[in-house]
């Protein structure tokens, strides 16, 4: 299963869907952070500026800075993106408790903006299965 949100060909449509989602627009308000979503060895840097996603970069992003990162193996993300994920892969926080995902960097900022981040990941799942 290919992980769609790291596919550069899909980046533009993902950004459009995210920025037009009513819940995401409320959840992401005031957020200006760079978030690294790491899928195995691939980094996807998502740039938030004043609550709007301005860029998703998964090509040549290995040296790009970020505020906080959520890391998981390819297998972990494939499970997370299933329509009904298996237990311990259905949420990032629960997955962290069980060691399937890792949060690194400015964790206070991550938790401050956890609603926006988790809504974004839910939309990733919705688009993965569309």
């Amino acid at each position, binding site marked *: 299963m290919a992980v769609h949100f790291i596919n550069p060909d899909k980046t533009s449509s993902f950004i459009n869907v995210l920025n037009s989602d009513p819940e995401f627009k409320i959840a992401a308000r005031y957020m200006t952070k760079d978030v690294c979503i790491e899928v195995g060895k691939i980094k996807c840097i998502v740039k938030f500026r004043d609550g709007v996603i301005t860029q998703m970069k998964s090509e040549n992003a290995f040296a790009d800075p970020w505020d906080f990162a959520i890391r998981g193996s390819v297998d972990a993300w494939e499970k997370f993106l299933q329509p009904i994920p298996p237990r311990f892969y*259905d949420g990032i926080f629960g997955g962290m408790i069980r060691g399937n995902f890792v949060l690194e960097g400015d964790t206070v900022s991550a938790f401050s903006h956890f609603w926006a981040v*988790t809504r974004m990941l839910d939309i990733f799942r919705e688009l993965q299965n569309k």
Partner: protein
Amino acid sequence: MAVIEPVVGKYVYLNIQGVEYRVFYEESGAGIPIICQHAGGGDGLEWRTLLNDADITSKYRVIVPNLPYHGKSLPPESLEWWKLEYRLTKSFFMDFHLELSIALDLDRPVYMGCYVGGFMALDLALEYPDKFRAVIGVGAAQRGGPATLDTFYHPSVTNNYRRVNAMYFCAPMTPEVHRREVTWCAMQCAAPTTKGDLYYYFKEHDLTGKTHLFDTSRCAVYLLTGDYDPTSSVEDTMELAKAIKGSKFTEMKGLSHAGMHENPPVFKSYLTPILDEIVKHSEQP
């Protein structure tokens, strides 16, 4: 004609460890008393469906208290609580339930609790087996384990964090309307309560080396854990059930952290056989 629920809310004054607390509780039904304890950083809203379930309230007097500092149970007037770090301790939590039983004149009630409340089910059964006829621990485990609690009460982290955690502590098959209610309720309690309640959960509850001391002939022990729960897994609770002789464990399929709130009909399907067994046992001479 307007729909009016049979649930009644009252206040009872409890003296706990020398301090008077005005404690809010709801109740509904008649029969064997069953105290339903909310989870950490929560309040009695978690049990609202059970309070309105005629199948249960026809046999049970369902009582849902809010711990001091939670929901409508305010901090005490006699303490300068704002100068203190809010922290739920095991001794306070146990004394709260002992005093509540006395104040409401309950005859060996059933105690049922979720998470922080579920852990308390075990501590009560271990230390006061003659005060409760049975305990039902939802998401109970032998111990809480290490954890960093600071992010649960931090000036940069709002109640939205708790809301999100609650949302993803619902199994993915949870009806959306319930998932969103769980998240809304998770934001209701005062900011310090989640961190303070988890002090008991993570730091004080530990049954290591004590499980052989349970006497389930005096106080029956039932354990319910959702298969999606990442905090107390099915395996964690099974390990505990094996260690407590005479305890009964049920895996709840399709539920996670707070089954009674995230998917009440599914939770009820697992709870009903336990309640029937308690009724049957209570009728025996």
